[in-house]
């Protein structure tokens, strides 16, 4: 499948900062390679907040595949191939999160950096039984946050802020890439307000068969 997310945001590629550029992250992989994320003991990480107490949800990820980033700004386009092993497609089934996470940052695994979505129709699609296997389009609250969610949820401990990404580059064939989160609602001390609701930016996420997938029966 091909997973694709688009948002208008600030992004740095090498030394060039693009302000309010249309950024698309794409990941191509095989949904057969989706696995349950595990903790340091090898135990699956539960997705804990299903409203239905009998429901079971897990945090899934797809790390095997190829990722790229395209940036469109002032009618100029830039395309970057990410080095393998940095970005994964993530699905937080019960919390209603979906998008691209990474093996970056101080925690070693980030569910919402470089770009992931919560709430919106993305939440409904994330909660669907086979959310990473079926074609779909959705929209939601866009997060590019190291340390998400800001005030924590379940096993994720937030400190109120998103860690600035400048020390955690994504490596690509055209230089280091950094995603920013410029538009947020904040508290009096400058921390991000209201946890999942704190971003003021929204974007879209799509799941598609890759070209040739249908022919090959995937």
């Amino acid at each position, binding site marked *: 499948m091909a997973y694709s997310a688009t948002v208008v945001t600030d992004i740095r590629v090498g030394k060039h900062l693009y302000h*309010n550029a249309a950024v698309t992250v794409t990941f191509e992989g095989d949904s057969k390679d989706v696995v349950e994320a595990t903790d340091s003991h090898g135990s699956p990480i539960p997705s804990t*907040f299903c409203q239905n107490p009998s429901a079971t949800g897990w945090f899934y990820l797809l790390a095997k595949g190829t990722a790229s980033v395209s940036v469109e700004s002032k009618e100029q386009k830039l395309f970057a191939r990410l080095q393998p092993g940095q970005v994964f497609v993530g699905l937080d089934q019960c919390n209603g999160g979906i998008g691209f996470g990474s093996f970056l940052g101080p925690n070693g695994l980030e569910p919402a950096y470089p770009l992931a979505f919560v709430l919106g129709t993305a939440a409904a699609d994330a909660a669907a039984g086979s959310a990473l296997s079926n074609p779909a389009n959705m*929209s939601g*609250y866009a997060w590019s946050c190291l340390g998400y969610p800001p005030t924590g949820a379940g096993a994720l401990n937030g400190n109120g802020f998103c860690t600035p990404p400048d020390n955690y580059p994504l490596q690509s064939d055209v230089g280091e890439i950094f995603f920013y989160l410029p538009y947020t609602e904040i508290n009096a001390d400058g921390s991000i307000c209201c946890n999942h609701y704190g971003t*003021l930016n929204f974007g879209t996420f799509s799941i598609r068969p890759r070209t040739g997938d249908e022919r090959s029966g995937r």
Partner: protein
Amino acid sequence: MSTIHRQVVKILFIPLPVVVTACACPDPVVYTLRTVADGKLGSHVFSEALVTIQMKADTKTVKQQASAAGGGTLYTNTGKATVTVDDGTRITVAKFAPDEVYVRYDTGAGIAGFGSSISPSYPIALDCSESQGCAQGDISNLGSGTLGALFGGPSNNFSQETNLLPTGLQNSTLLTGPAFSCATAYALLSNPIPHLGVCGGTAPRGLHTDLGDFFLQDQVGGSTGNALAADSESIYSGWDFANYGSLQVEVINR
């Protein structure tokens, strides 16, 4: 160097008084609205497709008038517009007939999007009221995006970058909010609080494009409500699970 040439050089280097005037320089501007929506383009019916409406115009044609909301300004502009529909089965790009749609930003209501002769809020408006519809904007609250944040001016509740976003259609900016795509009225739901559900009807006519008539009719709206997973810290409203969108204003060459 000849005498004539030396005189020309001298003339060229005579200090001249510098006159600085406010520049009303016209610049190309591109308005791009991205969201997910339901509708029909020509004979192709689509559900939850990526819908992008883009208009190429010029900043010099931006018009402004007092907002009917009682304060603020209504900005509008016109130009060549296209709609792209990508539902996963095909990607279709259609050109709107001239003057079929216009871009608008009503700072008095906190609403932006593309309007038409059918309705100022149709085909798409961002950040309408979740209980009253697009006759008024949403108050600044969680989920109302940069449009809600900019409504009423800078605030300590928002990041510096948010407060610095220009309000208008002549400068590059980013306007975000929940997406309303309905030419008629949304159904009104009451549980747990009064809010809008799905769009109640089709538009009286299609918006004309070179690939046939274009319709949008929101089939999600705030109808999903609390049926979805919810964490323990929040009480979700129906529009928390609606479609959201952004209107990117990008001035070229400035």
